[in-house]
């Protein structure tokens, strides 16, 4: 082979390697390019024995929820059964139409059971809030207090969301953007409250007209483009230009009026905005529906707190779960009724995918303060047309509520499921190569529809 020919071949191979990502994206993105993704973090660590992995008898370490340690009055799905003397526990909800079992915390989501995919027995290997949260969202444990990998919402925004004005909005959701190989447009917009989006976009009308702002933004954008042409590293200036341009589009569309707290509450009265733990989350859910039906976002994540019940506040754990799943059920109901912005005749729910997870679960035994502490097991919930619905995957040890062999043919042999497996499966469901974002985890084909 001549030297010149060899160099041509070598250059072509190098270019193919360098272009791997765009080629991959181009090959796969159409499949889910107008789908929407909702990520919900139940912050604090939920008690899985109250909803996904119900226990109602004393066995091994397990001390079940009972009328002694749980406030049963507000629970819509608590049906008492004798535990010991005058003490009642709950009857496990075992519907005939799907092979699933639920505790009373499932609340309104019980009616949507045929659309749920529950994953039990997730091995967390941690009982630290930040670590468990990062592990659930990124598939990696913290390193030096920092997330060493991007979270699942960023991965999806990077693959499928860069054409959106707001690819990834994170309302107290533990998003992390790590690495230089990602598109900068996938940087999550992390805010403390959904209403902040409206506030940031609000502009006073007393001094400048909208046309003044258009002129200002056009000038700043043109300056950024001009500087990019002169710069050794133009991408930073181009990013500023794209972000400034996106701001202008958001301002032009007068979106601040649609995203104020008042506007969202009036448009979506179905949510309980005055709920003790869920006022902010309800606003986040309302923002989610509004932003999706306007086709502004690809991913929205929000957090719901109140699950860290180490003492007497455990009495409210089941009620808190009921409220959480009530928000999810209302969200699904709204998605069922809202038309998809780009697919004629389709509803948002046909192309919306929800993943709900927590830091970890709580101990099977009740502590001396009447609560439950942290425990390295977990469950997760998926509501997605791409997943097998009405099924529970993974399992736990009967006496200890610890993760047990999931019965999946993993490459390394039998083992429990872990968050990286769930995240890998979630990414794979949308034709995204998990290896680009996850170090660990195997795709569980059985979960996919």
């Amino acid at each position, binding site marked *: 082979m001549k030297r010149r020919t060899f160099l041509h071949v070598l250059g072509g191979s190098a270019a193919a390697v360098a272009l791997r990502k765009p080629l991959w994206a181009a090959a796969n993105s159409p499949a889910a390019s107008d789908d929407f993704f909702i990520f919900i973090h139940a912050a604090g660590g939920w008690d899985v024995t109250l909803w996904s992995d119900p226990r109602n008898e004393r066995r091994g370490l397990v001390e079940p929820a009972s009328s002694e340690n749980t406030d049963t009055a507000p629970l819509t799905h608590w049906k008492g059964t004798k535990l010991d003397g005058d003490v009642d526990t709950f009857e496990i909800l075992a519907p005939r139409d799907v092979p699933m079992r639920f505790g009373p915390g499932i609340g309104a989501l019980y009616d949507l059971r045929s659309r749920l995919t529950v994953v039990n027995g997730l091995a967390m290997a941690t009982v630290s809030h930040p670590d468990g949260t990062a592990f659930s969202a990124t598939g990696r444990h913290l390193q030096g207090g920092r997330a060493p990998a991007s979270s699942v919402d960023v991965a999806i925004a990077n693959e499928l969301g860069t054409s959106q004005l707001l690819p990834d909005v994170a309302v107290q959701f533990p998003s992390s953007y790590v690495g230089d190989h990602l598109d900068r447009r996938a940087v999550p917009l992390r805010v*403390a409250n959904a209403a902040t989006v409206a506030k940031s976009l609000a502009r006073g009308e007393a001094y400048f007209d909208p046309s003044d702002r258009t002129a200002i933004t056009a000038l700043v954008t043109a300056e950024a483009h001009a500087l990019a042409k002169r710069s050794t590293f133009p991408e930073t200036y181009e990013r500023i230009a794209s972000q400034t341009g*996106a701001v202008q589009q958001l301002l032009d569309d007068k979106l601040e009026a649609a995203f104020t707290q008042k506007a969202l509450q009036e448009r979506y009265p179905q949510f309980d905005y005055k709920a003790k733990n869920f006022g902010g989350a309800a606003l986040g859910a309302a923002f989610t529906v509004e932003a999706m039906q306007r086709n502004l976002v690809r991913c929205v994540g929000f957090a719901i707190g109140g699950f860290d019940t180490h003492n007497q506040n455990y009495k409210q754990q089941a009620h808190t779960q009921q409220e959480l799943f009530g928000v999810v059920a209302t969200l699904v109901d709204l998605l069922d009724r809202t038309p998809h912005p780009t697919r004629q005749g389709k509803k948002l729910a046909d192309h919306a995918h929800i993943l709900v997870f927590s830091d970890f679960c709580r101990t099977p035994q009740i502590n001396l303060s009447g609560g439950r502490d942290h425990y390295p097991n977990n469950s997760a919930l998926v509501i997605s047309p791409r997943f097998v619905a009405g099924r529970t995957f993974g399992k736990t040890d009967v006496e200890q509520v610890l993760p047990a062999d999931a019965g999946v043919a993993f490459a390394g042999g039998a083992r429990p499921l872990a968050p990286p497996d769930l995240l890998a499966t979630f990414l794979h469901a949308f034709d995204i190569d998990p290896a680009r974002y996850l170090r660990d985890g195997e795709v569980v084909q059985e979960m996919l529809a």
Partner: protein
Amino acid sequence: MKRENYRQGASDAKTPAESGSGPILFFWRLGVPGALAVTLVFGCAAPAALAPSAPAPLPPPMVAAIDTTPKERRRMMPPEVYLRAYLGWFGGLAPLDVQAKARGKNMFDSWDDYLAALGLPDYKVDLPRQSQSNTLMIATLGRLGEALCVRAAEHDLHGKTPAAARVVFAFQPVAAPDDAQFAERFDVLHRLFLGYPVRLAPSDRAAHFFALYRAVAAQHAGKKGPLTPDETAWAAVCTALVQHPEAELY
């Protein structure tokens, strides 16, 4: 034994007159006055002539090549640095002063509303610092910049503040400035916000900003507002400069 040798050696020592010859013996025989006389005679004699020679070329200097090309892309400043610059530009304000100054007429609210949106950590809700700029951050900084520029125009221009007490617009404004008048005043703002004179910037920058000035002034001509058309136009120039990519990156 050693000591005996040492003593014997000392007793055997001879004076130069006894032992030596040559110049030492010569001076020894002359004595001190004679030696001084000889030294003076030869010391005051005419110097020996040196033959001139061509200077040898200096060795070439060592050249150490310094690579001044940028090695890393520009980055967003940490939010604290950026906000500190903001506060400095508008008169060394404390954060709460800014909040008090910028509020009203839907220009700004309170810092608490924007901590995470600006990239700062929000410990109240356990949100960490953000490492990348995003659209919402640019929007929030734009909102704050607009509020501060408008307030500065109110103070410096509309309030007829003496030139020495002006904070941002430290020049004498003229109504409907021409190219040269605008460029002279724009240079003041350019130095303040971007840190260098406008003559070092790309040559068309002043013209682009003058176009913005004229567009905004024309838009507000004949309208009744809190600022005159020229003041509004200067506030617009300030708002564009404070959001300029060179002000946001380092």
